[in-house]
């Protein structure tokens, strides 16, 4: 059993070329499926449906009753705050997702902390289409959804939400440079000069090790009024139909998802588990990290089902054989915040961009 570590940059290209050279691996954890080789995947339904595994069915990629990919882990977007700054300013924050704050309350609190501690910004927000979905959903918008075979124009609440988002990118509340020119919000948060950071669960492992100059905690995502977030998958585990090794490949995937083994995998990698009912002991010593995982699990359980729709739409299109294009949200929002266009044009461009290959 040989495990090969492939860098993320270029991984998708590499799989494409490997498919064309008939040298696909036996199994892989891939960033996303590709029409080029999706018909070479084995059916994993016996593993996905096995009652002992308790796999969250919301995130399975299935087509014609065949399960083509099982997520390696669940990811969710979420909020981090600089606890040291909050404590210094003597401002309180909620700790229970069922008693979460609204965005207005959140921004008022961070304003207060910022002015009291003379920090630079209230918030930095990951520059990503997936993350912005959380903003839209929690404010009551439905985001960009498929209507039949194509993406439909979004509802007015969504448009308003995007407009509001652009407004707070004003170099006081949020720095423009993150969404307009790719500045790294992770680095900005780590400087200790930013009160809050909206990103996701994958930062926890990194923060546990590399933030040593201030205290951080995970805080509940604000709801105005909807409890939601963006729920997505880490990698997708697939097994290829390579003649000689197909059976072994499937056995490996089966082995991977047996609860005892999956527990070890999820614990070691700091995953949110795709299987429920497991007791995970993460290798983190920091209380903040452990509390963080507990908070995320609670948030996922409270989240509106809409939270799964982002990745579900992309998956559906892929399985229907459509060539997927890169989500234009990032570029269009960058233009909006940079003042190159208004919000209506932004929204129109996003919809036409999403529909470009369909």
């Amino acid at each position, binding site marked *: 059993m040989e495990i090969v570590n492939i860098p993320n940059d270029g991984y998708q290209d590499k799989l494409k070329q490997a498919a064309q050279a008939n040298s696909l691996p036996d199994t892989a954890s891939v960033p996303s499926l590709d*029409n080029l080789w999706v018909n070479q995947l084995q059916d994993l339904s016996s593993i996905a449906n096995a009652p002992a595994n308790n796999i969250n069915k919301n995130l399975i990629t299935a087509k014609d009753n065949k399960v083509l990919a099982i997520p390696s882990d669940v990811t969710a977007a979420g909020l981090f705050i600089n606890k040291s700054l909050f404590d210094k300013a003597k401002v309180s924050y909620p700790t229970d997702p069922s008693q979460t704050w609204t965005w207005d309350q959140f921004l008022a609190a961070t304003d207060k902390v910022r002015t009291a501690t003379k920090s630079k910004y209230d918030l930095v927000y990951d520059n990503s289409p997936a993350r912005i979905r959380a903003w839209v959903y929690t404010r009551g918008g439905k985001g960009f959804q498929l209507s039949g075979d194509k993406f439909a124009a979004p509802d007015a609440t969504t448009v308003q939400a995007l407009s509001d988002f652009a407004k707070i990118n004003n170099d006081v509340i949020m720095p423009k440079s993150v969404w307009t020119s790719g500045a790294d919000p992770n680095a900005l948060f780590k400087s200790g000069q930013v009160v809050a950071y909206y990103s996701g669960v994958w930062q926890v492992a990194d923060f546990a090790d590399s933030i040593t100059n201030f205290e951080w905690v995970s805080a509940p995502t604000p709801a105005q009024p909807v409890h939601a977030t963006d729920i997505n998958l880490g990698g997708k585990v697939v097994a290829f139909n390579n003649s000689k090794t197909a059976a072994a490949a499937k056995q490996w995937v089966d082995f991977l998802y047996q609860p005892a083994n999956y527990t070890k995998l999820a614990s070691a990698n700091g995953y949110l588990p795709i299987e429920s009912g497991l007791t995970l002991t993460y290798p983190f010593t920091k209380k903040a990290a452990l509390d963080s995982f507990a908070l995320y699990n609670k948030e996922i359980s409270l989240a509106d089902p809409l939270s799964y729709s982002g990745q579900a739409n992309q998956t559906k299109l892929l399985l229907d054989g459509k060539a997927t294009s890169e989500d234009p949200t990032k570029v269009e929002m960058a233009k909006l915040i*940079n003042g190159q266009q208004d919000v209506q044009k932004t929204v129109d461009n996003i919809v036409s961009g999403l529909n470009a290959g369909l």
Partner: protein
Amino acid sequence: MVDSDQRPRPSPGDSADRPPEPIRRGPFTRVRRRNSYVLTPLLLISANLILFALFFIWPAAIGLYYSFTSYTGVGSAPPVGLQNYQNLFHDADFYAALLRTFVYAACVVPTTFVASLGVAYLLISPYAKGKPLARTIFFVPWLISPIIAGVIWRWIFGENFGLVNFIIIKLGGDAVPWQSNANLSLIIVIIAATWGNTAFNMLIFTAALKNVPTAYYEAAELDGANAWQKFRRITLPAIAPTSFIVILLTTLGAMKEYPLFRAINDGGPGTENNLIVQYIYKTGFRNAHIGYASAASFVLMFILMIIAGIQLMINRRRES
């Protein structure tokens, strides 16, 4: 081509003397001489010729074929004639990217040229002290990959917590929007590109500078010329073919720049600093419009041929 970066090349401008006419000794000798002028050069270029055919013509032909189809990377490639090219010529974003690319190239070529030649000249001058260490310092920036260069330059010129703004604020000024202002952001990339590309051109200039016969300098000294005059009247003309190639290749390389922009400002703010190759990636390859991306690439190639042609003509005129 797998040539990782586009680098200046020595001039193809013709300063080669023609081989003198073979001595007429008899018909057999003449024929033999002329044959050797065909066979030998053919043999010499054979390696590159084969590689050229296999690894440039063949893939380029495939790419050109794609440009007349609506290939998406998967399945068949249905031909669409000139559709891709027509769409391209009607796309305002294409022209915006092209213009920005010209602006960038027009700025970065002179800065790179001056910096590299200046550094090379200093490094072979007998007057400067401590050259080995300095040589290494000038060399290192070329080794740094774009992703690290992005981190470095964002740290120095970061709009939020960058070093330069930190100093400016400490001195009482206002933070400069190095990322939010498109032109300032472009200037940062120009600085970073010059910084990174100096070593490469410096190496080429060093070899050329060392090749200038010292007899010329001696003669000039005897005539009482000072350093600047020597540089202008002897050095510059003597390395002119190399200068030409450095300029040509730096131009071609600048027109194709993308990784550095992606690392430093991601084509931003917004899309204001999207150059042509980023446009090709974004509208073409990322969106699985392989046919369209190939068409745009060949239009770019055509433009680059024109630029190279113009530079070659100027060079030829200057030499005659």
